[in-house]
């Protein structure tokens, strides 16, 4: 196991009003993302527990691109990773942002 943590300043808050959302599952090659609207609008944070050790640089690159693209201001992401591929991580993060931007609680 490895714990990784990233904080970014972002240009805009995430859309929608929902407080939290969960996408994905913890399984081999997959990951679970819990996203909560708990931070100031100009910040986002990602806490990662991953089964794969030694991929910090790849996570940094994936998350850098994600933050740049989606500007997820105000969101904290808690990620349980079962060794997912980077493209799966990108997809789950994007799905999480979409889900929390939907209507409802």
């Amino acid at each position: 196991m490895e714990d990784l943590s990233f904080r970014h300043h972002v240009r805009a808050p995430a859309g929608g009003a929902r407080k939290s959302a969960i996408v994905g599952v913890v399984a081999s090659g997959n990951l679970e993302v819990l996203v909560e609207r708990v931070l100031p609008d100009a910040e986002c944070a990602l806490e990662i527990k991953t089964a794969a050790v030694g991929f910090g640089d790849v996570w940094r690159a994936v998350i850098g691109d994600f933050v740049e693209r989606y500007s997820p201001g105000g969101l904290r992401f808690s990620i349980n990773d079962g060794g997912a591929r980077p493209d799966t991580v990108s997809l789950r993060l994007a799905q999480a942002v979409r889900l929390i931007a939907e209507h409802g609680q």
Partner: protein
Amino acid sequence: MTGWQNNRAARDERIAAGAGFGHGKVVQARDATRLLEAVIRPGDRVCLEGDNQKQADLLSRALLAVDISRVNDLHMVQSGVVLSEHLDLFDRGVAKRLDYAYSGPQSARIARMLFGGKIELGAVHTYLELFARYFIDLTPHVALVAAVSADREGNLYTGPNTEDTPTVVEATAFKDGVVIAQVNEIVETVPRVDIPADRVHFIVKADQPFFVEPLFTRDPAAITEGQVLTAMLAIKGIYAPYGVQRLNHGIGFSTAAIELLLPTFGERLGLKGRIATHFALNPHPALIPAIESGWVRQIHSFGSEVGMDDYIRARSDVYFTGPDGSLRSNRAFCQAAGLYACDMFIGSTLQIDLQGNSSTVTTSRIAGFGGAPNMGADARGRRHPSVPWLKAGAEADPDGAALLRRGRKLVVQIGETFGDKNVPLFVENLDAMELAEKLNLELAPIMIYGDDVTHIVTEEGVANLLLCRTAQEREQAIRGVAGYTEVGRRRDHGMVERLRERGVIRRPEDLGINVLDADRSLLAARSIKDLVRWSGGLYAPPSKFRNW
């Protein structure tokens, strides 16, 4: 005595030596080893029919059991090294030299035996190349083939898995060789004659049907969202703009995803009838929904697929079938069809380097090539025009004179940037290079040469290598779709952006595809059971794919 018919006389002697073991041509299974000892000479070239799917397994075991003081140092010339017995022959000293094309399930062991010097390797061929050599310098002295049934005269019925048999028999029987067939049963009249009796010298009745491996079944349940996305990119980014109608699909989940998206995503794009109408393809179960939806007009097959017999029989407008109603496959003809009459090959690989060379060889596995290099190569002898072929040719050489400009076959490598166990698809140097050095090979085992590859599709986008004008552009186009692999992260971001502006690289958003729409619900079938339903109950999947 000098003469001009020595080989014929030698063949007749071999047949006479074997004749004592049977009644007419029919030999009992328990006498198979003694038959082989009588017929085969040390150092002979022997084709032990190991196809991509069908295996002459009884004859393999019989050959393995020979007295090695009588039969030894054989030169095996067979397309597939698939059964463990195929390699046990070399461990025992029955065989010494090997020329082959494909070794899927034995890929790890064959690598160990090559390193250990147990096998003297001629070459790893493509199918068509090995078949060609059967008629020039690798003609078998003895062919050991497999069929479903025979009559007492020796007419053979191969059933749907005809595969390599006509080619092997042609080369052997018409050049003074001996043909021995194992059959599942001996019947009064065969359902159709795949091999005429005068080319067959002995028939051995097997106690069990020959082994066939279901190689082309991909369970839709295992297709990932990433593969759905990649398939959407391929359809919208390549099939649609080139209008690809005649094509071959490799094995793999990415191409299975494409097959399952035709009736859904493809239909919504209005592509029905405009793409994917004529195939050189095994009977992939994943294509059933597209066939049932009226997309596919015709399919010629290299081999068959376990469980597809009844479906094929009921869809003879689509498949090639015999007077008995069942599929007639033929690997050599289908390979030729894929090489000359298809405008596109799309398939996966294990490693792609910065020039676009691709290989399925890793340092511990030598899987061979099978058909991909013939499908995935420009046919320099092609002369007939077609829209996709001419368009690709024009992209590669926009300033050439149209009437003198060759077209180009679309050769597409598709895959996710990270494969199984997070192994990167893109590498600076292919393992095949290291292997070639270790084994002192004169050629690295490259499956598809970079100069034949026209497009690479990953979840990050489509790279059109036809539009690259320099080696540097080509390298950056490849890095530009290599995702978060090390090769991808080392891209020149400025140059990749410029390539994107020119349309050399196209991202999902450039093609109007929202990554979040890449959902498994787009698949026309999401399980094997769904495929059975689409087929109206005609598809009978093998038990290992039944999980309901």
